[in-house]
């Protein structure tokens, strides 16, 4: 079930998706593009993990989906951050910062 690629730290995909949706609603491909672009091409999101993650987040009520039309006039499903999703994002960001700080300290101490 956990099919995230090794280039993504386990459990962080949800946070990245929420972050990608922070300002604008996007469809699936645009979310993947956005993460790739924000990470300056370091992180690639596989579609195989993207959609399960999207459905999971939707079931949690953190994002909401609506059918819309893309820039080039195609029908696409747009995801939007909900209020609870926004809260979840800031909580996860905070948590992540604490963890990475800890990891940095450990690595620096070597």
């Amino acid at each position, binding site marked *: *079930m956990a*099919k995230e690629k090794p280039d993504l730290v386990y459990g962080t995909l949800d946070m990245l998706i929420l972050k990608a949706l922070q300002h604008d609603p996007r*469809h*699936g*491909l645009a979310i993947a593009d956005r993460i790739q672009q924000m990470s300056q091409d370091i992180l690639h999101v*596989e*579609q*195989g*993990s993207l*959609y*399960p993650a*999207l*459905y*999971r987040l*939707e*079931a*949690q*009520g*953190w994002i909401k989906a609506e059918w819309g039309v*893309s820039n*080039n006039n*195609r*029908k*696409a*499903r747009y995801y939007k951050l909900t209020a*609870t999703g926004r809260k979840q994002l800031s909580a996860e960001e905070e948590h992540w910062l604490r963890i990475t700080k800890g990891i940095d300290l450990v690595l620096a101490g070597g």
Partner: protein
Amino acid sequence: MPRLRAWFSRLLGLFQKNKRDAEMAEEMQAHLDLLIERNIAAGMLPHEARNAALRQFGGVEQTKEIAREQRVWRWADEFLQDLRFGARMLFRNPGFSILAILCLTLGIGTNAAALSWIEGILIRPYPLVAHQDRMFAFIGTTRGVEGHNGLSYPDFLDFEKNSTLFESFIVDRIMGTSLSVGDRAEWASGGIVSANYFDALGVRPILGRGFRPEEGTGRNAHPVTVISYRTWKDRYDFDPNIIGRTQYLNGVQHTIIGVAPEKFHGTFVGYSFSFWVPTSMQETFDTTGYKLEDRGARWIEGYAFLKPGVTRQQGQAELNSIAQRLEHDFPETNRGHEVQLVPLWKTPFNGAGNMSPTLAITMAVVFLVLLIACANVSNLLLARSLLRRHEMTMRLALGAGRRRLIKQLVTEGLLLSIIAAAGGIAVAYWCRNALVLAFPSPVPGVVIDFPGQIDWRVLLVSAGICILSTLVFALVPAIHASHVDLSGALKSDGGGVVSGSSRSRLRSTLVLVQVSLSFVLLAGTGLLLESLAKIQNANPGFSTDAIACPISLFSAGYKLDRAKSFQTELLDRVRTLPGVESATFARVIPFSYNVFSSSSIEVDGYQPPPNQQPTVDYVQVAEDYFATLGIPIVSGREFTRTDDENAPPIAIVNETMAAKYWPGKNAVGQRVKVTDRWLEIVGIAKNSNYRTKLEPTMPFLYVPLRQNWGVQNTLLVRTRETPGALLNALSREVHALDANLAPRMPSRMQEQVDEMSYSQRLAVTLVAVFGTMALFLAAIGLYAVMSYSVSQGTRELGLRMALGADAGSVLRLVLSRGLRLTTAGIALGAIAALVLTRLMGNLLYQVSPRDPIAYGFALLVLLGVALLACFLPARRATRVDPVSALRV
């Protein structure tokens, strides 16, 4: 909140599987299209672009499957898996499954049946009647006196007129009457009802109409009747032109104006009515006189419908204030009189009040039956789980969680109880009208009706019982099975060791539980049977051998003077009949549906508590009444023939009345004022029962019939002849006096008493049936557990015999072990019973909750069953061939 939403969306996902799948496919297709477009823009050829996009995306189907997992309820999936597995297990052990399902069907079915009776008789007793949740029995009470009485018609009208919180009030007074069609005359029960009766109940006649408002008033002015569907069917054979035809009721020609719907049986728990007449016809059907303008005649039984949203307390408060006003305006008749709204299931004037304790007992007994059935199934499951230990151990070793195992076993249990619940509800459905079987109709033509009703409430509670019992019987074996010792148990499973292992400890515990539960049930059943027998045998205070002969002078058109001379002459003639020891007349005989007269009284030197008006029920009886009914006169004298209109007015009181109003004095020779006349007391009669055996003792007064004549009286005869022989002789005498008159079939007072105590007889029947069922289940369970535990020890027994033990000592060993357990279980059960039977206090009649007979009975029965249950397997054990036992 988000958690709830997630739960909900997954739940939705379960049901909208197809829709969600289609949406998902569309979304992924859109994604692919975008990728293809992008590739084309980057300069690829269309088919290259498509292949590249598919590569980029990865496996579409796999992605879908993974995505699906995110939303499908995993638990439901597992549940279905367990269910499938459970069903397979059930089919593999049909013997076990059938036994378990039968036990549970019995347990759940009896509970569902009892619930349906409670629903159909107590909660929602009247099919087709709207708003039964706002319907209350409307009764009169007297301050400072237990029990209830009726309402007078003028009072009833005042309550109806002056209240604002009520939608409607209805009168419904039961009466029996002769119904003649052509030359046939039969007896039937019917209701005297207010004109608004059918409208207030929301019941539309299927033919014709209900009563019009004006038909409720005017003395005997509106001889119209609405007949029941059954009457229409049985007597008129669905005559489509029935409306407008006439029908003699109590000798008066009535016009049929309507036919009630098929399911409507009236509003009297216990009887199905054949017809209804408006209040204006009261005098025709009431043998005790015209009462519509008499504020002191309290004969009305009725119901009140509250407006929506009004509570019973608010309604009661309003009635209280009206009652106070009436007390103030009419002190002569109303001082001390109050009214009360009573929930339908407590209705004191029909079967409901009698049935509710009976049904409470029944519910308690069937619940114990269910507990014992659960214990049985629990034992069976446990025995099986021990056999399945190998399977369980294997699963645990392969990494199944304990929780998962428990879940699976509980699911199997649930499967059992769901099947059983379905069977049980079918059983309840068949039994819903079975209560009537316990009561053949006392009089041909009168229909007894105790309907069960299965609606969503009954089904809901039954489902609850099903789940509850699953938890009770499946959880213990499941938890036990999941605690398998991995290291030891993978080795092959064989015969156990008799003592010491946790397995046999658990088995012993189950035997203990079963024995003690059975003991509680048996002791409780014994107590109930004993008290019911006591009620049955309780002496009502008069001789039930006396024979009552109703002679309908009123419907024959007799007026007072003619009735007087007829009755005087008849009495003289009857007294000379062979075999007759004494004969008398009474206006109302004990244990009848007719009400006694009631009057406020005054007593020299007795100061009533403020705001209370002492009242007393009284009856008009002829000379020799006390001799005929065998009621002893403890002081003074009985009425004589000379106590007539020319003699000074006198009365006889009962002991309770004498003690209440003349404490420490001899009441004989004192005076009491009854209905504005001062009467001299000439005797004190021993207390007896007047309406039911369970009534509290109450003051009661007798006045001589010859000083208080009435048209309609019942002849009471004490004779050595049978009622049939008496009828022949009596017919001749009546015929000699009036050729047009025939007496009805006489009956012994015992029948009258039995008829009024049908609820007790019903309780005996029900408790006996369910008690036997429980005992049977308990015996099966005990036997199964015992024989299982012996057979598990076969190997050890074989070993012992191989080492030289003889059959006798093996038998002794097995028996003594079984009896030790039984004794311990009985001791536990006795302690539990001592605590629990105290709760039955108010269901018992003159029986102590610790009655030694009931406990002794339970002890003997259980010991007997246990002995048998141990002895048979023990004897089998002694026949074991040691070699084969050891080889297993």
